[in-house]
Each structure stands twice: as C-alpha cells, then as structure tokens.
C-alpha cells in the first residue's frame, strides 16, 4: 500500500456537497497532480463533520489544520501554500464570528473539544465508501465478538448493562426491547432501522448514515443475531439520496466481505439487509406507520397492542430502532456494557447527538455525554448567542418537544429531566432562541408543521391540532379572544390524552410549554394586542427613533408606498396607516434608526 505524507480530508456530507465540496475535491486533485504531489498527498472524501454551516470543510493531517468555508478556487492556495510550502493558509482557518480569532486545529475548537464523540467517532475521519477504513478503526469487531464469543442472551445482557435507550425519541431501554422480540416465537423475524428523520432541522441520522454507514449495518447484524432475525430493512427517507447511495454501497461491500448475507463469518448466522426508500412523510417515522409503509400501504399508525415485538412487519415479530441507537451497538459489544454505562446519568447512559441550530454562534452536530447541561451545549460548544443578544429559550425535541428557559440552563440533559420540564429528548433537535423570537409565533410554526403532517386518521390529532392552530393564528393576528389561552390548554391536554400515536400525543407540547413559561407573551398578544418580541406583523409597526435618525432620506426613497415623510437632515416619520410592513426602510437605514415595535 502506498504511504502518503499528508491526508487532505474533504467533507462529502450533504451540507458541504451543496456548498461545493465535490468541485473542491476535483480542484485539489488537479492542483496536486500539477505540482507532482499526487503521490505524496492523498485527498479523502469523508462524511459530515457536523459543522455544515461553515462548509465546505477541509482538514489537513497530520497537523489537523481545520479549514472552513473553503471555496473550489481556494484549492490553488491550499496546495501551493500549505501542501507545497508548508505554510498554513490563515485566511481559511475557522473563525467563530467574523472578527473572532482564528483557530488552527481541530481539537482546539471548543465546538469539538467539549464534545465526546462515540457514535460520531468515524464521521469526518474515514471515507464512508471504503469498508477497509471502517475495519481499520475496529469496524466489525463487535459483530465478530458477538457471533464467535457470545450467545444471543449474552448480547442482550450486555445491551441491558449498557443502559442504552432508544435515540429515536421514546427512550425505551434497547436491551429490554430486544428481549421482548427475542422471546417472541416465530419462523421469521425482522430488524428495522428507522432512518425517516422527519423533524424539521434534524440531520444527525443523515450525517451518521453518510459518514459511517457500516456502524449501522454492524449494529443491525448484531441485533438480528441476538433476536433471531434473518432479514432487515433500513427505512430511509428518499430526500436523503446520498445516504441511500452510501448505504447500498456499504451493504454490497459488507456482503462481499462475508459480513452480511449468508453464513456470516463462517457461522450459521445469516442476515439479509434491504434499503427501503420512504416517501418523506413525518408520520412514517412512527414505527407502526413505518411498517405499514414498508408493506406498501399508506403510512398510517396502527393501534398497539399488538406491539411490533409480537406482530410487526407483515405480522411477524419485529424490532425497530433508530439510526443512532443502532450505531451505538458495535462499540457497546466491543467495549462492554459497563464501559458505556460509565458515561451519563443514573438513568440515561452514554452520549446523545444533538442538532444544534438557531441563534448560536456555532451550529451543527454535537455529541455530548448525557448529563451535560444545556448551558454547556449552548454557551461552551455553541459559543453563545449570535451578536451577544440575550438567550431566551431552547426548543428541544422538535415539533414534539417543548421549550426550556433560562431557569433550565443548568439542567443536566437526560430523558427524565427533559420530560420533567415539559420538553422531550425527541430525536435531538435543539433550537436556540434569542430575545427576538416570539414564542407564540414559534409555537404556531411547530403546530403548522404537525397539523400538516398529521396522518388524518384520528380525530383529536386531525381536528384538534387544526383548532389549536386556528386559535394561534388569530392570536398572532391580533384577533385573540379572552378564554383562548384556556382553550389552548384544554385542547392540548385532551389531544395528548386521546390521540392514537406519538404525533398527536406530543403535538401540543410546543404550545403547552410556551404557555407554561411564556404565558405573559400570549397575554400581551391577546389583551394588549402587542407582540413583545416585535415579530408578529399584525401587532407591530415600523417606527423611526427620532434620536437616532440623521435625516438621510434613504428610507423615504426606498419605501414602495410612500409612507415616510420628513425633511432632509431632520428626523423622519412613518405613517403607520400607509405602511405595508415590508421592512425595506429598516434595511436601508444606515444608522439603524428604524425598528419594529
């Protein structure tokens, strides 16, 4: 095998590909060839680094130099300066904010140094299209250990010791779930990987599948061995073409190596794995709807019992786990359940991957041990709020979750603590919200999503979320009535109580938690017809601050409806009757004298 003095890792995740990383790779290779360096320096396409917004990402090893926002044109400079002359290209080093200090090395970045990457350990390090790179980092050793040294009961026992709980939302203990399925007697069983990932803003499963597909395959094979299944499905949303491509390639490679398919590693255990493309409905992530969808039916949840462990896919005992859950399995088997259980809190073990988004300086994929506080995630890893605005809340768990406030900043993250505070772990969406976000508007956004995604089967969810949404809309439009808050609370609780599946049972959470912690904002909308955050357009007006206005007339010239008047060099004023609230003036004002209030 040829050896190289340098490896240039170029991110090939969906985020970086869309910001031009494929072209960048091409250019790098071409430049290296031009300089005759192509025998010394290897360009490797990796999976996502979790910092997609700063993409395309390039890491140069052995130094570990971390370049962000690298454009295809930058290839020339990187090759010329860094790889040829050995000088770091300072201009491309990562900066948290525009004028912040540059960070040279991967592990110096607080974003990475505070993380604890277990599930994501290979993401961004290996070429996901090459099974040898996975094997080179202990890949398939867990499977070998399970098949050759452990009985199925040993495997389940180890999973129970690890304390791993489902990462798809519910947090059900994985070992226990496997045991139910193992105990179900049947000639046929299935294992399923839930890669539907329908939460808006969530992308941890996608990144895992793109960056380290073999970890999921290996986890599923171990699970199948433990439960006595010989066939499995990965249900992946069709909007993830790259993940699907990498999964299919990974399966083919694993089959070629005898790590999937018939008589794996020469044992009597056989496991056949298929990829099924989902049609992209949020509700298809619900396990019974997902199985209906694999069976070719409309993705609608079914009542439980019967539970999948007894009657799942095609009426056969089935076990379904989330992508991240499966990806944890190989390392648990290899390093032992006790190793995994040494991380986390009393009842929530190991690590959890979050998709950190919203108003923080560093957004992206973050893997932290359970028990990490929200403050650490938002301020240490996330770097705090953009423009040093005031932190207001985090919305955890996407449309099924809830918001937590300043009083929860030091809450150690665990399934119990989040549920206790009215949010849920969910699949791990973590949206940071600052003082400029209207909580009623945010609740409305999530309810719009769940109402549109409700499968329409059961009455409370279909009709109830619509009614709640109607009420929220009228509140944000200034037509809220006394009693609306109580109606929202009552409806929310009844919808949670009476809905068939998790979608309806959690859909009211964003409304109920914002009502719990930001009731005054609702009251201001209804009683005073005011939006305290200055967001809801029906309740706010553009106003010029006469103390700040320098009378430059820019706003008056740009206003499409001629709503602004004033003499040159004197404070201007906006006629709110005429104003159509397009916001053009506020953008044009050079001294930021125009604000929404």
């Amino acid at each position, binding site marked *: 095998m040829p050896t190289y003095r340098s490896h240039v890792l170029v991110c090939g995740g969906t985020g970086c590909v869309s910001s031009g990383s494929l072209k960048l790779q091409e250019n790098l290779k071409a430049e290296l060839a031009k300089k005759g360096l192509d025998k010394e320096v290897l360009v490797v396409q990796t999976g996502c680094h979790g910092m997609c917004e700063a993409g395309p990402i390039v890491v140069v090893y052995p130094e570990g130099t971390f370049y962000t926002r690298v454009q295809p044109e930058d290839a020339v400079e990187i090759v010329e300066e860094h790889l040829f002359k050995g000088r770091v290209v300072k201009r491309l080093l990562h900066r948290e904010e525009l004028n912040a200090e540059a960070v040279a090395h991967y592990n110096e970045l607080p974003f990475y140094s505070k993380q604890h990457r277990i599930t994501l350990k290979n993401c961004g390090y290996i070429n996901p299209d090459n099974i040898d790179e996975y094997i080179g980092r202990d890949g398939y050793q867990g499977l070998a250990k399970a098949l050759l040294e452990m009985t199925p009961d040993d495997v389940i026992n180890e999973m129970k010791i690890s304390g791993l709980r489902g990462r798809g939302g519910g947090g059900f203990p994985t070992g226990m779930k496997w045991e139910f399925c193992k105990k179900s007697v049947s000639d046929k069983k299935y294992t399923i990987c839930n890669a539907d990932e329908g939460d808006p803003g969530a992308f941890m499963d996608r990144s895992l599948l793109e960056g380290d597909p073999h970890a999921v395959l290996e986890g599923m094979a171990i699970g199948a061995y433990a439960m006595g299944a010989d066939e499995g499905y990965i249900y992946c949303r069709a909007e993830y073409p790259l993940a699907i491509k990498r999964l299919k390639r990974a399966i083919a490679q694993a089959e070629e190596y005898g790590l999937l398919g018939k008589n794996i590693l020469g044992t009597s255990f056989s496991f056949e794995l298929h990829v099924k493309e989902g049609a992209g*409905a949020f*509700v298809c992530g619900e396990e019974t709807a997902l199985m209906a969808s694999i069976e070719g039916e*409309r993705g*609608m949840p*079914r*009542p439980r*019992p019967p539970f999948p462990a007894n009657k799942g896919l095609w009426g056969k005992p089935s076990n379904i786990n989330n992508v991240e859950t499966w990806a944890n399995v190989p390392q648990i088997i290899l390093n032992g359940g006790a190793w995994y259980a040494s991380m986390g809190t009393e009842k929530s073990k190991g690590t959890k991957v979050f998709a950190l988004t919203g108003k923080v300086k560093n957004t992206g994929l973050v893997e932290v041990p359970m028990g990490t506080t929200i403050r650490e995630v938002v301020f240490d890893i996330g770097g705090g709020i953009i423009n040093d605005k005031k932190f207001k809340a985090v919305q955890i768990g996407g449309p099924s979750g809830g918001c937590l406030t300043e009083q929860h900043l030091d809450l150690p993250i665990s399934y119990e603590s989040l549920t206790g505070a009215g949010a849920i772990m969910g699949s791990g969406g973590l949206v940071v919200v600052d003082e400029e976000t209207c909580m009623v508007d945010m609740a409305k956004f999530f309810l719009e999503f769940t*109402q*549109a*995604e*409700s*499968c*329409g*089967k*059961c*009455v*409370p969810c*279909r*009709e*109830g*979320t*619509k*009614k709640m949404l*109607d009420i929220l809309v009228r509140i944000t439009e200034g037509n809220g009535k006394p009693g609306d808050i109580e*109606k929202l609370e*009552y*409806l929310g609780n*009844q919808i949670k*109580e*009476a*809905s*068939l599946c998790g979608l309806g049972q959690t859909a009211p959470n964003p409304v109920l938690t914002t009502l719990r912690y930001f009731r005054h904002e609702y009251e201001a909308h209804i009683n005073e017809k005011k939006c305290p955050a200055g967001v809801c357009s029906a309740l706010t007006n553009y106003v010029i601050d006469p103390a700040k206005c320098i009378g430059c007339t820019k706003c008056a010239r740009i206003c499409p409806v001629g709503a602004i008047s004033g003499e040159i060099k004197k404070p201007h004023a906006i006629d709110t009757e005429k104003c159509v609230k397009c916001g053009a003036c506020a953008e044009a004002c050079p001294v930021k004298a125009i604000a929404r209030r």
Partner: protein
Amino acid sequence: MQGIEAIINGKKIIAEPGMTILQAARANGIHIPTLCDHPVLKPVGACRVCLVEVEKNPKLLTACSTPLNPGMVVHTHSPRVLEARRAVVELLLVRHPLDCFSCSSNGQCELQDVAYELGIKESRFADEGDTCRSYALEDANPFYVRDMNKCILCGRCIRTCDSLAQYHAIDFQNRGIKTMVQPPVGKDLENSDCTFCGQCVQMCPVGALSEKTSIGQGRPWEMEKVKTVCSYCGVGCELNILVNKKTGRIANVKTDYTSQTALNEGRACVKGRFAWQFVHSDERLTKPLIRENGTFREASWDEALNVVVGRLVQIREEHGPDTIGFFSSARCTNEENFLLQRLAREVIGTNNVDHCAHL
C-alpha cells in the same frame, strides 16, 4: 376453552379468549360508544370515541382494538374517559354541517347517537365559519351521493371496499385537515375501480354516503324491513327490502352483515342494491298478453297457459320434438331451472335446453 375473567365498571365479567374489551363489554351487556368500529371490519382505533380507562395503564385505550386480558380492571365511563370522549366528539362537530333536518342519516346516524349519549348540544370549540361546506356534492352517478362535508373519516367505507367488496377502489388521501376519502389521485369515482356495489354506502355511520335511489322515499323510522332473496341472479343474495309503511312502496335496499342465513354475508352488487325501481314501474307486465293478428290483448293466466300448451303439443306433433327449444333464465331459482329442463326432456322429449347466460 376457558373464559377470561375481568372487571368492567366494578362488575366481574367473563369473556371468550381473544375478545376485545369492546366485544367483552357488549357480550356482558355493557355499552361503549363507537364510530369507526363495525363488527365485521378490522378495528383501527381511529375515532377515539371508545376510549376506556384500564387500571395500571397510564394511557386511555381504545376498547375496539385492545384485547381483553385476564384480570383487567376497566372503566368505560369514568370522569376521565367521559372528558376525553366528549372532547373528541366536540372536535368532530367543529366542522360538521348540522344538516340533520334533511339528512338521509337522520334517525340512524351514529354521530347523532354518540352526541346524544354524551349530552352534546354544540361544540365548545366551534367558531363562526368553521363548518365545512367546501366540498361540492358528488352525485354524478345514478347510484349514490357523496357529501364529503359530512364525512367523519372513520374509514369504514375504505375497509368495506377492501375486505368485503374487495375492489380497493378508495383510500385516504392528503394529510392533516385536508385528509379525504377518494379514489386514486386524479380519478373521479365514475372512472375508478368502483363498481357501485354500494356496500360502503350502507357502512357509512353518517350521511356522507347515501343511496341516490332512496332520496325522498321516507325516513328511517318509517320503514318496515322485509327479508328476501335478490331476484337478479343465481347467487341468491339475501336482501332486506325497506318498505315505506306509509306508501307501501320500496324505499331502499340494505343487507345484513351479521345475518346467520345470508350466504352473501351482507354483500350485494349494484343491481341488487340499486336497481329495484322496476318493481313499481308503470310499464311492468302484470297480466299475460296474447298476440293476435300482430297486436297484444290481455288474457287470464288459464287462457294464456292453455294457448302455450296447445301450441307446444301441436308443434311437436306436426314437426317433431326437436323443433322446440327451451331457454331458461339466470333470474330463476335452481329449482325453477331444474323443473324447466324436466319439462323439456320428459314432457316434450327434447334435449334442446339452454340458459340466458349462453345467449
């Protein structure tokens, strides 16, 4: 098999193994309201009206879909259950057009019944303008009318078409509040796989589907049910003719999915269910006619039969028995067809016997 013991509303009950909570309750005379459930359809747990409280279970469970386990302690009308049930029905009523006055379902409507049972007069959640009137009435075909404004999306029609009619002509479409029962995208009913067998119509718990043929023929409570066998074909479907007691005329045709005597098990085809108007047709022959010199005149049965017998005998004598042929009908019973061929072979002496299905 041993019965299952459980407690419902404080009363010890015994049920057959495999029964759902709903079935067990019914078998023991305990009423639980339902909308999306029907005894001959697979339960789906959609309407949530049958929610009950089961001790040690944090969530309310749907009685229609949850198997009764030994020792279960069930409350079918606890305050918590009634609160949820009422909320569900009131949510259904938010959009429902209250057209009961002129609705074909009035008097047999399951939504009315549940609302009545729960004492709901109007929905607490309805606001002005909520009522659904946006779907146009679909009545292009001669058999049944669809008013999707009244549809409560229980899915009974879909399950009926899938499992009983087996045409798979309709399914849910869209999501959220836009969810609707429709034939496949882009097709109207008339160009879909629907055969207009009308089984879904009969299954609809509300007035969303109704027989066009029964419009204005009388109210449900004015009907007398007459059990009969369909006169169209040899299958012999059992039908329940609904006769308006006031007018003495047929108003509608239904079937009974749970009838012990029906070999059609509640199924019927478009003809049996919808094509009964001939019964009251003015053009229907009610007396024998004899043709003389190219025109018909009315005659008595005796006279007509005598003419037939006389001519048959005459033809056989003059031209031989094989110049005569007998055609029988699919609309006759097996017994009638059997008798006809005996008449041909044994009385006339010919094997020329055929059947309308060969024509």
